[in-house]
Each structure stands twice: as structure tokens, then as C-alpha cells.
């Protein structure tokens, strides 16, 4: 056995360039496959993480504009929720855990000293905290007393804290929100690429200070027992029934009320990702196939080049099996060795990227809104790809070698 390894090593050393070229196509194939699949996974994990800002079964409803006439009312009627509606729904929507009306004030200026930022502020109730996976970094979130006393307090996102305060202690400071002073009660953290982080103020303060009409467009709440697509569809139907009778629009009207529940949007994204996954796999497999074609090509040329040598060996007593074995083993050694190199490099790069991303400080910059999380590949998939490549390498060596050894020794000897 030692003998045959020496023969193989000698053949590989003699044809260094060929060995390296074959090896490169193999290593490259597996490397690209790993990097591609890892990137796909990273993207998927990243988007998944961005969904975390919403608690699992958060539902939001937004008032729209009717598109059908109903009960003598014209279509094109703009809907919104009155304070009475808000209170009514709180007691009539099924399965509610947490509940908060949302008043948005776009383009609001928050200033501290000479610094100012322009953002959106949300007037919400304490329940809103659990509707989003909001974490408090400093101070507190809006509480019941804020609501009861209609306090002018504000909860900021680290992005604004950085801009407004630099190194000053934040909580307890007063900022001007459209020239109205608010005391900073806390700093919260939430990462999402999907939205600009808002500043939060108590709902009734917002109503009193910024919303003279008292009508709002959004209500958000948490529900139990709505986990599947079926349950989600059923729940949506139930809400539509309640809303349409209260607000006088046709239950068939798709534009009167807009729903957004995490389960549905999560499912939609999942679907997009399964499509992306398929593409990534197709590209990966194509790369792998290019590697296989690379080995096959080079093995065909190799065997052809060595036909004369095989003739000599046969004249000296080499059996076809011994030549076949040598060629197949050589091909196998090359694919294994370089496949391993490609695999190691690929895994090293993806793991390094993953580790760097995990180590990055969080919470105070835009970079925190990541689209790329944990870009790694399941090792079984890597090993599977290696197996495919190795089998392909064996076949790539076997077929031309089989042909070469089946010709008569005298023909092989006269082969140039």
C-alpha cells in the first residue's frame, strides 16, 4: 500500500501545475458553495432577527379609506378611530392581552440646547412596550401614572441620545418637542431595519398637545391563540366583522381597514426566503458542477497524456486494475485534499464573519440595524457537498482511465 501512495505522490509532484489547477477548481467550488449558502443563511437570520422587534402575535390595525358604498354611505370615505372607538375596541376585540392606541406625529423636531433631530414620535400607552420587543436601557417606559397625570415625558432611542446629548446624563433632562418641553424618562433599545426608531410619549399627552381632533389612525394589540395562518385568517375575519359594524363599512371592503399581524408578514418573508434559498442552492450546485467538470476535464487530459506511460507500465507487467487504481486514487487524493482546503477556508471565513458580527457593540449606532446575522452553514451540508465532489472525482478519474487501460498495450505504446 505504501508503494502505491509513493507512485501517486510522484505523479502529482511531476504534474504540479495540473494538480494545482484541478485542486483549485475543486477548492473553489466548495469554497463558493459554503460562502454562498452561508450568506443566504446570514441574510435569512438577519431578517428574522429584524422581526423580533414585534412580539410574536402583535396585530396592528390602520384606518383606511372605504372603497365601496355601504348603508347609504358613499365610497371614498376616510376612516379614523375616535377616542370612543378606541375604548370600545379595547373591550370588544377577542383574545386581547396588551392594547395601545397609537398616535403618530411625523416630522417632529426634538431639540436639546443647540442640537436637534427630526423624527417621528409615537403617543402610546404602557401596553405598547410588550407589543414591540422594546428593551429599556435607562430609566423606564411610559407608565400608568404618566397617562393618569398626562405627564410630559419622553422615551428616546439611543440614536437620538447620541446626537442630542453626547456625554450628558440623559434621564431627567428636558428636551423641546416642537417647542414643548418634555422630560426624558428613559432610553429604550430596539433594532429593526424596517423603521426609523420613534420617540415615545404618553398617548393622552400626545392627544392633548399635538392632536386637537383626537382621531387616530392606528391601534396595536397583542392577542393569544393566534399562531397559525388559519387562526390568523379567522381572527382577521372576526375583527373585520366587529369593525365594520361599528364603523359602518362593508365587510367585503379591502381598503377600509389595513391589518398587519406578525404571523402573516413573517410567513410572507419566509416565502421570499425559500425562493432565495432555492436560487442560492442552484448557484451553489452550479459552482460545484463547474468544479466537477473541471476535474473531469483535467483527468481526461491527464489520462490521455499518460497513455504512453501506461503502455510502458503494461509492458513491464502492470495489470489494468493497478493502473486504474493509481489514477482513481490520484483523483481521489486531489479532490479530498483540495476539497478539504476549500472547505476549511470557507468555514473559516464564514465563522470569522459570524464571530465579528456577534462581537460588534450594539445599541448606539445605525450599524446595529443589521441585515446579516450568523452567516454560517450546517456542517452536514458541507460534508454532503464534499461527498458529492469526492464521488465525482472518483468517477472523473475512473471513466477515462478505464478507457485508457482497455486499449492494447502496443497501441498505448505507440500513442504520442
Amino acid at each position, binding site marked *: 500500500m505504501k508503494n502505491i501512495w509513493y507512485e501517486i505522490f510522484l505523479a502529482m509532484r511531476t504534474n504540479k501545475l495540473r494538480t494545482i489547477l484541478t485542486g483549485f477548481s475543486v477548492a473553489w467550488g466548495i469554497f463558493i458553495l459554503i460562502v454562498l449558502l452561508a450568506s443566504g443563511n446570514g441574510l435569512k437570520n438577519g431578517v428574522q432577527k429584524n422581526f423580533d422587534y414585534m412580539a410574536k402575535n402583535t396585530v396592528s390595525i390602520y384606518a383606511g379609506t372605504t372603497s365601496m358604498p355601504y348603508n347609504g354611505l358613499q365610497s371614498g370615505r376616510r376612516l379614523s378611530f375616535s377616542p370612543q372607538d378606541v375604548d370600545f375596541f379595547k373591550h370588544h376585540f377577542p383574545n386581547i392581552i396588551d392594547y395601545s392606541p397609537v398616535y403618530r406625529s411625523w416630522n417632529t423636531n426634538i431639540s436639546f440646547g443647540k442640537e436637534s433631530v427630526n423624527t417621528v414620535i409615537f403617543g402610546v400607552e404602557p401596553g405598547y412596550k410588550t407589543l414591540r420587543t422594546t428593551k429599556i436601557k435607562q430609566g423606564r417606559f411610559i407608565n400608568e401614572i404618566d397617562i393618569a397625570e398626562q405627564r410630559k415625558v419622553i422615551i428616546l432611542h439611543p440614536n437620538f441620545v447620541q446626537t442630542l446629548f453626547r456625554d450628558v446624563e440623559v434621564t431627567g433632562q428636558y428636551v423641546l418637542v416642537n417647542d414643548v418641553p418634555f422630560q426624558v424618562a428613559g432610553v429604550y433599545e430596539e433594532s429593526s431595519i424596517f423603521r426609523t426608531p420613534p420617540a415615545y410619549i404618553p398617548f393622552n399627552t400626545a392627544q392633548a398637545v399635538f392632536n386637537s381632533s383626537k382621531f387616530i389612525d392606528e391601534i396595536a394589540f397583542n392577542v393569544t391563540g393566534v399562531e397559525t395562518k388559519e387562526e390568523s385568517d379567522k381572527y382577521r375575519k372576526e375583527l373585520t366583522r366587529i369593525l365594520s359594524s361599528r364603523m359602518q363599512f362593508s365587510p367585503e371592503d379591502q381598503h377600509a381597514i389595513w391589518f398587519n399581524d406578525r404571523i402573516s408578514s413573517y410567513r410572507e418573508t419566509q416565502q421570499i426566503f425559500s425562493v432565495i434559498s432555492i436560487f442560492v442552492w442552484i448557484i451553489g450546485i452550479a459552482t460545484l458542477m463547474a468544479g466537477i467538470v473541471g476535474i473531469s476535464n483535467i483527468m481526461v487530459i491527464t489520462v490521455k497524456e499518460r497513455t504512453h506511460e501506461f503502455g510502458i507500465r503494461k509492458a513491464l507487467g502492470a495489470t*489494468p486494475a493497478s493502473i486504474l487504481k493509481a489514477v482513481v486514487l490520484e483523483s481521489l487524493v486531489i479532490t479530498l485534499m483540495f476539497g478539504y482546503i476549500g472547505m476549511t477556508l470557507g468555514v473559516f471565513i464564514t465563522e470569522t464573519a459570524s464571530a465579528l458580527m456577534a462581537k460588534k457593540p450594539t445599541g448606539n449606532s445605525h450599524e446595529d440595524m443589521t441585515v446579516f446575522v450568523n452567516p454560517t452553514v450546517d456542517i452536514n451540508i458541507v460534508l454532503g457537498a464534499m461527498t458529492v465532489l469526492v464521488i465525482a472525482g472518483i468517477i472523473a478519474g475512473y471513466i477515462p482511465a478505464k478507457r485508457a487501460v482497455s486499449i492494447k498495450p502496443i497501441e498505448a505504446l505507440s500513442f504520442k
Partner: protein
Amino acid sequence: MIQLTNIHKTYYTGAPLHVLKGIDLTIEKGEFVSIMGASGSGKSTLLNILGMLDTYDKGTYLLDGRLITEMNETKAARLRNQYIGFVFQSFNLINFKTALENVALPLYYRGIGRKERNRTALEYLDKLDLRDWANHMPNELSGGQKQRIAIARALIAKPHVVLADEPTGALDSVTSQEVINILRSINAEGLTVIVVTHAAEISAQTDKIIHLKDGMISEIISNK
């Protein structure tokens, strides 16, 4: 040692070419025989059939009493390894192996370990005055040296028959004479040596000259 009866061989590449048209020939153990003939007379084909590098269509070939007929390549390879040593006009050394490794190769296919292989190969190189060249590559050697390497390789597996196809065809007259002398001494040790040549001064030094003409033996001259 070798007994041919009515051997026919036709090549079918393009127009059928009837190369051997019934060869009857007996070569005894220990003979030193040359096969002569113009190019196309079939002398190389005959040698290839003797060496089991090629097959024949009709007739019988007995080698050491064993019928050599259609057999699988594995069996043929074993028989070649055991019975026959080849010397070629173009040496046919493997160019990425050293002189020593080239000489040792037949023993590799006999399944002998590397240490013993190399020891034996060195012995044979020594015999042919090439010990100092053992670790040289073929392209670093002269034609005469290459042919002596090839002879050492042909002898190392202790064959019964040495087949030489124009062994001096690529060499000058001085080295040619050296090679013939070596073949002569091999024969003196009891091996059957068959040389294909078209040079009269070579065949004149063998014991028996077989003339081929148009695929038939035209005459056999004893030269002893």
C-alpha cells in the same frame, strides 16, 4: 521456449492489411536470434505478438509450453512480467522517474517492497556500469546510457526471454556495439534473446538470422 504455428495477423485500420501470413517458427531456450526484414515485412508485429503486446488472428503460440491465446489483459500482464523483458528502440523510460526507479518498476508490479526493489535495481545498474547514474533522470542521460537502463529494467525481473525491437536504432555505431555486447553476455547467462533489426552488422553477431519478407519467413540462416 517459443513455438509458433501458422500465425496470421491482419490490421483493419482502413484497408485490411495482412501483415503476417502464416509464420511457423521455433526458438529454443538460450538461443540468440535476430529477425530481419525490410520495413513493413512484419518483423515488429511478430515481436509484439511474441511479447503479448499484440494479439494474433490465427494459429498457435506456445510460450514455455503454455498456449498464449486470447486472454484477459490482467493475465497477459502477469505473464509479461514473469517471462519477458523488453528493450525498445526509443528506450521507453518513464521520464519523471530516476534511473533507479525505472529499473525497479517491474519488481513493483511483482509486489516487491521498495527497499528490496531498490537494492536489486542498484545491483543491476552496477552490472551495467550505471551505478553512479542511479539518481539521474532519463533526460540527463545519453542514448547509450538510456538503453543500458532499459536493459537493466528488462533483466531485473529475471525473464526467460528478452525481446529487443531495434535496440540500436537510435544509437551511434560505437554505442550500438556496446549494446550488442551486453545482449550477447545476457545470452551467455542462458537467456533467450530475440532482436528485431534491419542492420546486417547487428544480425551478423547473432546465432540465428530469420529473414521476413511480406509477412512470411523467407529464410533462416544459422550463424554459429
